């Protein structure tokens, strides 16, 4: 009978089924341990409890052991820190050990120490008397109460921030019981003082509350908050059990247990019933005063779950839950629900009985409901054989439906396969379907990885077709990180093994694995692993961290990402004390070199010179010196730098540069002298500009001297002087100059010079002396288009004539007409 183990509680049923026969059977006596169990089928931590032990007080440190839910030992260690008040598990399955001095030590489930934090100075100074681990909206929180009767709360153990709660007025001895209530994203403490309750919060406010207890109930001695924080159960010294809402606004019932002994554990079973434990007696009380009692063979420990209660004993691990509605609908005796009928039909069908058809006909219209009920009910069964029966019924019903969507059925089959796998005693995670839905598949996979069940995790991912990036790749990366911690394995072998597994897996970060290896002090392995990393941006920083400077630099350069090269270069520069060493290191790498030079050029020119000096690149060194000379104001200082530059140019045998630099120094000194003489500045003028200014000033001696000293070619000098004179409008001098000797330039230069500075009349003076081949152009220049055209015709020069035509744009319209008309003459005369 499917309902054999059902017990009615009011109008619902509760059932208890065995999950595991404990592997620790015969080895562990729970009565002698303090116990902490992680929810959602998590591991069990035990610590030998001195107070529960014999009278002989020993100084032996207790042993902490972690078992999986099936009672298989996972790991064990001797506790050698302070006195542990409370143990608890975080939502990420880390073991939290809260010591008397408020220090919290965090371990993973293999008892590897992870981190520690303190509950504050006050807790440390005055010690704590009790601590609670609770699930907050951010994860897992811890609350402690100190001997000074103050409560401190940390809402998230991953980023501990200590908050002091308001003080309870009139509290001068440790409260008989207290609890944490999480509502509105805030953790508040509910403290019992006599028959009064105080709710204290983080804002320093307290709220006195009255539970609606009968008069003779006596002071409150125990309390339990339901899994969803919505309900509260209280028990009193006189044996009253009060059930209501956690804000004390509603009271469901008050049940008299007639026991003046305080229960060992008061917990909720799901959110529907309160369970009290006295040594070997379990009493389940519903909100309507209904009750069930179970007698146990040995002392047990109760664990509150989302949808039930786990009862852990010395031999067995059992699960108590309210029979889910859908299960009840199918299996309840005499149920006429479609699901029940379908289940019957399926059973008859297997017996080859025609009744099957009858049953199906009865529920023809509600067949889809029936199928859904069977699928749902299968999910709530723990026994695979029952699951199978229900699924078979669902599948049978499905045959009669034409447009039934197969997804719910397929999904349930998949989920159940996964659940059955993780419930197996070798894994030991007794999850229910409801719990898995809440936990979600990715978290389950994470938890498997945390248990180092990599193979199973990968298989599940592949079975569920989880994308590689979230599934397989991630798990293999974790596997590799775990692998590198195994110190006894040969490094070469390890590196090979890891790379073989991971090479073709997309999205695996070898650098992460390498950094893990580095953390465990396996540098060589890390270097080997890093070789497989494709992304240089991940590789290089780690190589630097490992001190593999040369490799880092090479990899950075190979990547073509200059930013990485700079990262390495600047790191090296800061690391190497001696800049010489640094230069030596990079000089063999031209890219690194030129990048560093670029960087230095913007920072400090002098440094660049040093670099080039190191490199024996005298030419560039000289160039830098020239550039630097312009940043100096003082002439002599500048000359000095330029002389240094000359030396550089000497070294690289660049005579041209030597000569030019020498001349520049000479010019600068002359300019200085001129400035001293005349008080006018010549600084920064080129030779040409200096001459120009001197001519304007009429300083003939110096003009002559400069001309000779710097060997200014005749022609250039003439053009220069003509332009300078014209610019200074010294027409007389210009005229004189034109007749001083036979000019090495054409007279047209004079014409141009005059015209440039707008003196047409002066320009005309030179026209007669212009050589014939320049005549036309000069005439055009001064605007005598007609004459120019005539001259062109005279010389029968077609090109010149076209030139005149092309320039007619700015001519007088009448003249232009005349010139155009002359085109014929050119042809005629030819």
């Amino acid at each position: 009978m499917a309902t054999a183990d059902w017990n009615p509680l009011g109008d619902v049923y509760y059932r208890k089924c065995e999950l595991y026969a404990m592997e620790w059977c015969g080895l562990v006596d729970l009565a002698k341990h303090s116990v902490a169990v992680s929810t959602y089928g998590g591991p069990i931590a035990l610590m030998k409890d001195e107070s529960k032990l014999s009278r002989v007080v020993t100084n032996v440190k207790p042993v902490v052991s972690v078992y999986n839910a099936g009672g298989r030992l996972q790991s064990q260690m001797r506790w050698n820190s302070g006195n542990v008040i409370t143990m608890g598990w975080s939502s990420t399955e880390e073991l939290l050990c809260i010591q008397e001095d408020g220090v919290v030590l965090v371990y993973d489930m293999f008892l590897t120490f992870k981190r520690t934090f303190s509950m504050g100075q006050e807790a440390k100074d005055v010690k704590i008397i009790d601590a609670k681990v609770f699930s907050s909206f951010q994860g897992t929180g811890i609350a402690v109460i100190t001997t000074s009767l103050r409560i401190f709360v940390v809402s998230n153990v991953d980023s501990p921030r200590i908050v002091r709660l308001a003080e309870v007025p009139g509290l001068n001895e440790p409260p008989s019981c207290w609890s944490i209530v999480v509502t509105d994203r805030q953790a508040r403490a509910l403290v019992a003082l006599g028959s009064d309750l105080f709710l204290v919060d983080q804002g320093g406010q307290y709220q006195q509350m009255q539970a609606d207890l009968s008069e003779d109930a006596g002071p409150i001695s125990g309390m339990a908050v339901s899994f969803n924080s919505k309900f509260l159960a209280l028990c009193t010294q006189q044996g009253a059990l009060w059930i209501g809402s956690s804000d004390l606004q509603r009271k469901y019932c008050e049940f008299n247990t007639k026991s003046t002994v305080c229960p060992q554990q008061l917990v909720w079973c799901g959110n529907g019933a309160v369970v009290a434990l006295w040594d070997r007696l379990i009493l389940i009380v519903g909100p309507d005063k209904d009750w069930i009692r179970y007698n146990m063979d040995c002392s047990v420990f109760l664990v509150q779950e989302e949808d039930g209660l786990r009862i852990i004993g010395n031999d067995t691990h059992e699960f108590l839950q309210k029979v889910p509605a859908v299960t009840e609908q199918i299996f309840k005796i005499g149920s006429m629900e479609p699901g029940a009928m379908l289940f019957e039909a399926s059973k008859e069908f297997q017996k080859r009985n025609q009744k099957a058809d009858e049953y199906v006909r009865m529920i023809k219209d509600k067949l889809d409901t029936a199928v859904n009920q069977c699928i749902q009910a299968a999910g709530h069964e723990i026994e695979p054989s029952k699951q199978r029966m229900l699924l078979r019924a669902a599948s049978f019903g499905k045959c009669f439906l034409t447009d039934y969507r197969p997804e719910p059925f397929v999904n349930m089959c998949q989920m159940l396969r996964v659940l059955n796998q993780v419930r197996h005693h070798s894994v030991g995670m007794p999850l229910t379907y409801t719990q898995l839905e809440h936990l979600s598949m990715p978290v389950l996979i994470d938890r498997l990885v945390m248990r180092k069940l990599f193979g199973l995790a990968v298989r599940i991912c592949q079975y569920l077709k989880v994308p590689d990036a979230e599934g397989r790749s991630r798990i293999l990366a974790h596997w590799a990180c775990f692998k590198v911690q195994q110190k006894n394995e040969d490094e070469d072998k390890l590196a090979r093994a890891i790379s073989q597994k991971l090479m073709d897996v997309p999205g695996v970060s070898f650098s992460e694995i390498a950094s893990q290896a580095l953390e465990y002090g396996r540098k060589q392995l890390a270097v080997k692993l890093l070789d497989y990393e494709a992304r240089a941006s991940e590789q290089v920083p780690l190589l630097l961290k490992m001190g593999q400077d040369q490799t880092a630099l090479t990899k950075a350069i190979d990547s073509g990402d200059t930013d990485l090269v700079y990262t390495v270069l600047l790191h090296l520069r800061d690391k190497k004390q001696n800049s010489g060493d640094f230069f030596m290191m990079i000089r063999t790498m031209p890219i690194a070199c030129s990048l560093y030079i670029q960087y230095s050029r913007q920072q400090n020119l002098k440094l660049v010179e040093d670099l080039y000096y190191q490199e024996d690149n005298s030419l560039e060194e000289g160039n830098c010196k020239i550039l630097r000379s312009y940043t100096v104001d003082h002439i002599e200082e500048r000359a000095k730098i330029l002389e240094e530059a000359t030396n550089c140019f000497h070294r690289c045998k660049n005579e041209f540069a030597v000569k030019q630099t020498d001349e520049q120094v000479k010019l600068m000194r002359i300019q200085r002298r001129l400035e001293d003489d005349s008080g006018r500045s010549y600084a920064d003028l080129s030779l040409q500009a200096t001459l120009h200014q001197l001519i304007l000033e009429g300083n003939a001696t110096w003009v002559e001297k400069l001309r000779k000293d710097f060997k200014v070619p005749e022609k250039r000098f003439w053009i220069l002087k003509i332009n300078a004179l014209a610019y200074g409008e010294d027409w007389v001098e210009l005229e004189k100059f034109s007749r001083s000797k036979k000019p090495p330039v054409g007279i047209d230069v004079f014409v141009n010079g005059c015209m440039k500075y707008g003196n047409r009349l002066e320009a005309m003076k030179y026209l007669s002396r212009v050589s014939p081949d320049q005549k036309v152009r000069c005439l055009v220049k001064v605007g005598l288009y007609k004459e120019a055209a005539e001259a062109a015709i005279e010389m029968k020069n077609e090109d010149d004539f076209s030139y005149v035509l092309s320039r007619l744009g700015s001519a007088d319209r009448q003249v232009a007409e005349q010139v155009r008309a002359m085109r014929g003459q050119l042809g005629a005369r030819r």
Partner: protein
Amino acid sequence: MDLQELSKLLKTQLAHLLVSFPDAKDVVLDPDLMKPLDRVAGITFLKEHGVSKIFKLEPGKKSLQGCGKRVYLVRPRLVTMKYIADHINTEIAKGERRSYKIVMVPRKLHVCEMILESEGVMGHITIDEFPLELFPLDSDLLSLELPEFFTSFYLDNDTTWLHTVSSSLVNLQRLFGRAPNVYAIGKGAKMVYELMETMFETHKDRKDKTFHIGQIFIVDRDIDYVSLLCSPMTYEALLDESFGINCGMIDFDGEVTGDGKGAKMLLTSQDEIYTQIRDCHFSQMFSYMRDTAKKLQELENKKNNLQSVGDMKNFVGNDLKVLKQQQKLLTTHISASEAILKMKGKTDFEDFIRAEHNLLEGVENKENMTYIEECIQKQFSPILTLRLMCLASLTQEGLTQREYKALKTQFLHSHGFEHLVTMFRLKKLGLLTEQEVSQSSMRLGTAKVPGISVKKSNYRALNRKLGLVPNSEDINLQQPTSLSYVFSGAYTPVPCKLVEQILTRDTLIGLEDVGRMCGGLYADVKTKSQGISMPGPGNPAMKVILVFFLGGCTFSEITALRLVAKLHGFKIIVATTAITTSSRFIESLVEKVHR
């Protein structure tokens, strides 16, 4: 495919960036980023995303006014970081409370963070990046607007921006599909290609095989400096040379617009008239414009023959507006052309062009040298003079020792000693060299020095192989069939010629020598392209080609590529690190000392 997709993507990214720094904020812009940002997003877009004031980052200012939140949008340069640190430190000293965000464009660099850290402002700022890489300037033109790429990569061997180029190509292909065929011409191009491949490898994500760009050419600037130095002859190139086109925008002064106020104008294919004339040889422009004017006139005449009220309504509603707009555009273009003519008239333009063309043809060497000397003597602008000097050196594969020294001396005497450094730079790039004389002490000296290898010009051989200077005198300027029309038939830009050759021949066989002369010709061909010789159906995306110029290109080259596309039925998209002209190119190499 539509290049505007890129703009949209950038806009989304920018909006996200601004929104992630909530509330009202001021934006301080790097002057370099003003125009690009204007093209990508525009002021109103910024205002819509919570920007209250926009400042220009200026070196002199020690602090700025404004509200409690500030975003710096800057290039990752060390000096810029120092300015910002100055701002922050001064303002903190004054007791002003503000939160700062520094957004580096196109990506954040470690060195910059180091500077900020050493200046002690890391605690006050958050750092982010805005991947403003390639963005569209026109329907067939993308630019990184990184003019410093040229000097930084070719002159200083700084490979920083190569990463940006590669990543821009990767991102472009993420958007438009991975191009099956890639050609890399030149050393830098090969590096970009390799970097690009690595990036694809480390971020395998897209399995999608569809692509909208069939072939990508990556071309090194240093395979052809000559085309950079030639005087532009087509309208768009001339506009750029005369007025400067910045991010597709041009600033006309009052003289051009005629109203004395000047005007900004956007030059894209959306301007119908401009599309018609942008690629015209200058000599043909006026006839084009005359035709257009006539057409407009006809349209205008329509108003005299309006028969009914309906016609009239139609005319006023549609035609009139278009007419007015077109008339205005045409007027502007005509006056711009006149302005160009006037500017050319002021200088010795004909002589200059004659010298240039003679140099390209390799004739009348003596006269050419005399002309260059005259340029110095007559104190022409040093940029123009250097242009001719470099052209002479390139075309003759080095000047003779005597000419080299004489010209340099004269130049230094005239324009200042600091140009000694300029000369070194030109030499390092192989722009201004002397002819190989083995016993020359100077070459011996430099040959030993690592990092300085003077690139030798191989103009003559390349010219012979590719026929860069066409023999026939009569180049059709009106209906051009030869790419050389962009320089009045005097020269064909090598990159454009090579692209044309590879595309039409569909093979690299026969181009080995040319490849060697260009520093390597590398092809990664996954899909045999449908050569024009082979008719039949093929993936139309194979006819879409992206040509990426490393180190900038000129509008003349863009025009030449447009002709390639037109002649052979391709769609060519030009991408470049920046658009340059011969003057801007030389100017970037000239030493400007701060006096």
